[in-house]
């Protein structure tokens, strides 16, 4: 192995470790710390289990919510049992149009989504439904969006069987300023 390079700035240590696998950090406290690259990757075999119909629904161009059989509380983000009364829920199809309950534009994100920035997040509310759905809002800039804005669902083709198989766009064209 080649001679380890030594750095006084930890940022440089990180860069070297990413490129070469190891480096020495000349620590201001007077120690020399050996820093190595330690990769970690996992493939999970993940079952959506009781939530499966929601994701299969997205693949068919439908957003499936769930309604409590006992108290009729209606969930836009489904769950198989009611959080209020504990009874079983049944599936129903949500409208493809809703309103922005809240929104933001993310200029940074977790590493997996960093390349997609900036992107918009919205909590979407639907008429006659008690809870919300979190989704991306596309086709709108920061200056276009507002709470109460009408939005409609767009489905990914082919599906990836992720919640991101549905996103929303403004129902009406943004007004010109």
């Amino acid at each position: 192995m080649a001679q380890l390079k030594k750095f006084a700035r930890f940022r440089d240590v990180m860069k070297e470790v990413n490129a070469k696998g190891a480096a020495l950090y000349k620590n201001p406290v007077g120690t020399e710390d050996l820093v190595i690259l330690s990769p970690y990757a996992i493939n999970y075999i993940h079952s959506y289990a009781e939530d499966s119909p929601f994701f299969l629904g997205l693949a068919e161009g439908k957003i499936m919510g769930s309604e409590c059989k006992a108290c009729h509380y209606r969930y836009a983000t489904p769950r198989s049992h009611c959080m209020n009364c504990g009874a079983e829920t049944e599936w129903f199809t949500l409208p493809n149009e809703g309103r922005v309950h809240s929104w933001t534009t993310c200029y940074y994100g977790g590493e997996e989504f960093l390349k997609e920035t900036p992107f918009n997040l919205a909590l979407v509310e639907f008429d006659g439904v008690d809870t919300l759905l979190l989704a991306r809002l596309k086709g709108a800039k920061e200056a276009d969006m507002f709470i109460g804005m009408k939005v409609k669902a767009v489905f990914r083709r082919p599906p990836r069987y992720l919640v991101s198989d549905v996103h929303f766009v403004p129902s009406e064209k943004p007004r010109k300023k």
Partner: protein
Amino acid sequence: MPGQRKVYMISGGVTKFAKAHPDMDFRLMVKRAFDYAMKDVPDLKTSDIESSRISYFSDHFARQLKAASMVQDYLGLNPKDSRRIEWGGATGGQAIQAGWETVASGRNEVCLVAGFETMSHVETWKGNEFIALASDTNFDYPVGGFYTGYYALMVQRHIYEYLRKTKFAHVKDERKAQREATQEAKRVMAMVSVKNHVNANHNPYSQYPEKLSMKEALGREMVAYPLNRPMICTMSDGAAVAILASEDVAFKYTDHPVLIKGVGCGTDTMRLADRPHGSVPRFQWEKAEDYSGLRYPGVHSFRAGRAAALEAYKNAGISDPKKELDFVELHDAYASSEIQTYEDIGLCRYGEGYDFVDQGHPFLEGIEYGLELPHRGTIPVNPSGGLIACGHPVGATGIMQGVFAFWQLQGSIQKHFGNDELQIKGAKRGLIHSHAGTGSSVTVTIMERA
């Protein structure tokens, strides 16, 4: 609290929170904080400690399962009772309450509460990904999982409920009204950011002390609208410990123990989308008509924080927190959530949080902020600098708040900080608040000078 023994904090220690501590692994960080705390109570021997509650948030950051057992081992506490505590962002607050429980129940006389996090082991954006795994991985994470994004969604609705519908109700154009309300909120959030960074200048343990001006605070890079860099806490490495003891032994080890007067804990749905729209669980000084037409908690307020505060105040016999508390150390992962938390824990009513800051109530007397603050010092919030300026090594954070509160109540800030700028003179009672997820779990603990 009936049927429970009184529990005191008798000592504490904190490592300086830093972006990275490559010279210390988690065991050595905890050891340093532990040795500091032990030095402060020389009559206490390691053999007097009967149990430990050890907290860290993320197995992903640690990449070492059973890391709490390695801390127990390194501190020489085997073969005594120990367990790991994990509760998201509220891990540290929950660890203190777990330690309190074991002493209050009579099982132990002395319990060590120790926490750490080593977030520097991955790059910042990978770290953000790890933290986002603490949101529902079926429904929330794949949309673009990012906690600052979630908190931005929450504060946007908070602004809509409490500024758009009130101060900006006269603006006819909806978009314009919302935009102006957000600008106003952003100005107030920048004041919180200035407060916490400026306070931290006098706290030698803090990671980001800064003489931050309003202009700088408002001008920095946007992360998730309307939250920008100085309004958000960052990744840290650090450790903190608190030593708890029963009334029978506490005074053997120190003349100035601090009573854990009351504990409270609350919860809410993991997913923001599921938050109910009901009515406010009220403090006795709030009236139903204060909140007519308000659908609560929605995504704008933290019902878990309200529930935790209600329980803690009941247990501590507090009826008016603004009058009966001398300071608060709360979980300001975001400047927005600091303002939301004022309302949850009853420093003001729901909807009054922005005004509370604007009037200066949570600012310290005697510190120069470069702001006009007519009512400063009513109840200082985050005199230490909070998470925004001290850093947020998750498993240590709630314990760090406990240690800073302990020193405030002992009147020993001068001794531990090397200056007394942040010492609240005559502080008798303080509150620490630890908060997880998008507000899915919150602890509130009341501490009182003995």
